[in-house]
């Protein structure tokens, strides 16, 4: 995959600050990079016990930031990468669901490679439910979505998340705790609407 670092790094900062146009430009690049790494890991990652997504993002970061001087702050990268990671996971889950429903044929728009992420049907279902709920939460306060992306999808620590989102660690901690509890009790089984 021939991704030159240049286009990405022009747009990272505006994208991380919410510029939708910039996000549209940089997102696919990071997304495909993360995906390629995730897939690669699947083939090369042996002896796996536990794994955090942070490793994937690190690798993407290292790969894309290999040209020196292009990179002012890794925080911006992480903000975007966290979103991309969410998308990678969610798409894999949706594919799984589609298969399960007998959809068999994969939509043409999806990269063939996405199919190769193996998610169990149960995990896929949980992930899709979770994402739907997270969207509700985000509608009320976008910061929740971004914190969950960093903490859950990217496996960043409280401090890293705070750094990435330019808020205090205390805020991240509070909102993360709140979001987790809120999402949990709103999962279908509790029937909280």
């Amino acid at each position, binding site marked *: 995959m021939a991704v030159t670092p240049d286009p990405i790094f022009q747009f990272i900062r505006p994208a991380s600050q919410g510029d939708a146009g910039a996000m549209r430009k940089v997102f696919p690049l990071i997304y495909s990079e993360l995906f390629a790494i*995730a897939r690669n*890991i*699947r*083939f*090369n*990652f*042996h*002896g*796996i*016990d*536990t*794994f*955090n*997504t*942070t*490793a994937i993002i*690190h*690798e993407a*970061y*290292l790969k894309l*930031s290999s040209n020196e001087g292009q990179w002012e702050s*890794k925080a911006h990268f992480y903000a975007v990468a966290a979103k991309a990671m969410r998308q990678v*996971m969610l798409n*894999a889950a949706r594919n799984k669901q589609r298969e399960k429903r007998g959809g068999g044929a994969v939509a043409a728009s999806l990269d063939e490679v996405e199919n190769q*992420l*193996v*998610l*169990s049907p*149960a*995990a896929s279902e*949980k*992930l899709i439910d*979770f994402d739907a709920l997270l969207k509700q*939460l985000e509608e*009320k*306060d976008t910061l929740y979505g971004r914190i969950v992306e960093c903490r*859950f999808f990217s*496996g*960043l*620590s409280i*401090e*890293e998340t705070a*750094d990435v989102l330019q808020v205090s660690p205390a805020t991240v901690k*509070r*909102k993360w*705790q*709140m979001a*987790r*509890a*809120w*999402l*949990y*009790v709103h999962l279908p089984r*509790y029937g*909280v609407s």
Partner: protein
Amino acid sequence: MAYSLELLEQLYEQCLSLPGEERLAFIRGACGDNEDLQRVLHLMLEHGQQSADYFGALQQTIMGGLVDEESTPGLVPGEKVGNYNVAAFLAKGGMSNVYLADRDDGQYEQRVVIKCFSAKIFSRKDTLSQIGEQQILARLRHPAIATLYDAGVTGSGVPYFIMEYIDGLPVDEWVEQRKLNLTAKLRLFEQVAGAVAYAHSHLILHLDLKPTNILVDKNGQVKLLDFGIATAITSGTGGPRPFVGTPMIAAPEQLMGANLTAATDVFQLGMLLHKMITGRYPVADSSSSAEGFTRFNPEKLIRNPEISPEIVAELKAIIAKCLNHNPEERYSSLADLLQDIRNYQQHYPVTALPYTLKYRSFKYYQRHKTQVVSVVFIMLSLIAGTVISLWQAGQARAQRDLAVKSEEVSTATRNFLLDLFMAAHPSKTKGDTMTVFQFLDRGYLEAEKYKGSPEIKLEMLTTIGKLYRSLGDYRKSKDVLDKVYAMAKDSSLPLSLSYVQAIQQLALYQRDMGNYDSASSIMKQVFRLYSGIGYPAKDSLYTASLKYHAYIYRSLENNDSATALIRRTIALEEQIWPDRNNINLAESYYILGVIQRNQGQYDEAIENISRSLELCEGIMGTYFPGTIANLNMLASTYNLSGNPNSALEHGRRAKNIAFRLYGENHMETATTVDNLGGFFLKLGQADSACHYFIKGLNIRHKLFPERNNVHVMISTNNLLSLFVKTQQPDSVRKYLAEALKVGKSPKVQPRQRAVTYWQAGEFFVTMAKPDSARHYYQKALSENRSYLPESDERVISVVNKLKELDNKSAVTTNHP
């Protein structure tokens, strides 16, 4: 009833800050009749922990989904693999399936484990069996390493390893189950690290030191599994290096696909130690370093008491040192790591604590106790003959040089070899069984055979030559360095820093051989080369070279050039480290002070040495060899400048620190003790002087039972002088006989023999035996003349003594 998320968040947070029993009333009061809000709040508070667990588990499941589950092949019970019958399926690992099997050749019963892998992970079919054979040939036999019996590929193409069956628990579970205390945990950890060190000595890395690979059997014996498997998988593949290991504990260089060295295992052992002590791995933490992402910031572990609070500071420092992002900054060998663990257990200062350079120089002196090391130590001190040389020759420089050089040319082979060499350095092998020279010889053979880049070969040979030199094997060192020189001259190698460093080694070799002229002229060439490659003078490698050269000038008694060079060094170093708070700079002030002292400029000398002392103590702490060197030199300068009380004060401090740092039986300690004796003698307190001189001599006798070197000679002379001065003929005869005997050794220098003869002359004058006196004065004169010019005071004073004797005898003959 609707409620705002903002309100929910606010109430939720308030509830969390309240004790459990007050929450109910609070919620009732705050929510009023909004039942939905009440219900959600209750649920959220109730399920705090579950929600955390749920998302944690979900994260794991999702990531687990990334693992390829279908591609690991299986064996079936009853299937035959080599001489073994598969008995049962045992476990499934991420990359392998594990089976129990029994030996099936009717010879004897043996239960083994067969591990089979996906064929995909071995890029070439023959890699596995090759590596397996290599490992078996390498005879990795250690009580704490599960033995590998066989490796190969089954008829159906499944790669496998057959290894010892271990009935045990993963080390973390063992620790928890047995509720081990810290001491027991550390002992267990030492077992693990010891086994890894053993494997390193056989050039095998582990690279996946997770608890499930470290079992403890019911007798408490540690058994490491899967040694070399990671190496087997990583080696022999073309293209990008696949990641092998466990990301949770992987070192940064593993995640980045960079070169893996012994330092990678050091990193993982740091993770393991944290896990064993606290039950969890250290929390990832961001750092603002510009070089990219740091998964874990070791600085923070040390500085922030809230991180891993259950670990004491010393062990935190040790762990942090293992976890350094930069492999060069970690323990350079497992021997070092183990030593630091022992330091902690024995309440010695832990060298990792000041975190920077301290441990390096410090450890050099801490591990002098084995004989090998004593020998090296003595060699080093003989070579330069002064206390500073020991400091100078300290590990710090050697390691720094290597670290800087390795940035220049970097290959896995070379790094690993370097690590081995460093591990093999006697200052770092306290108690290790392998001998240093075996190690080096092996390295030499390998380097000779090396067919790759000539620059790397040059590097390897330079390193080996350097190590031979510092170990005192000058013949081999010369041998290697000659090859380096031929290579450097011959081949079309581009001028490079490696080349310059190689040439510098030749200079240091000549210096060590006492050929200071030749050393000096080679050093001049080194500086021409530096400018040839456009190397900046404002660099610590360059200033180190300047310092070497200044030293060589000093040995040539060319004080002017020595002073000029060391002043230039200082000027540059003050630019490199503008805050002047640097240990290299401290060393330079010290050298300047020593030169000034030798020229009789005592006030300036005291000023510079004091400045060095202050820096040393500030940066490295009191228990640092440099501190002692400074105190000794300061004391002796005070003594020369006619201030024996100040001399005594500093001498006492030096002695106390040396005792604490080196223990009683150590060269450095003996030196401080002897110095004290000298100061007391100057103060006219002969009894105290005698006490210390005898103590000093006893230490040296213990250190050198053969009693045939400079140090024993100096101590003996001290006592001889004392007894001559206090006129105790019996004691004089005793030590004179002793000194004459020691003086026969070729290792003793003329100047020490001259002292003995001079004192003998003095003694026989007081005993009214002019013939004997004349005999010894003449001997003293010829010794002095062998190395001093006619104009030297020491020559002149002996000549005068002889004249006096002649006059007296002339008077006697004229008046019978």
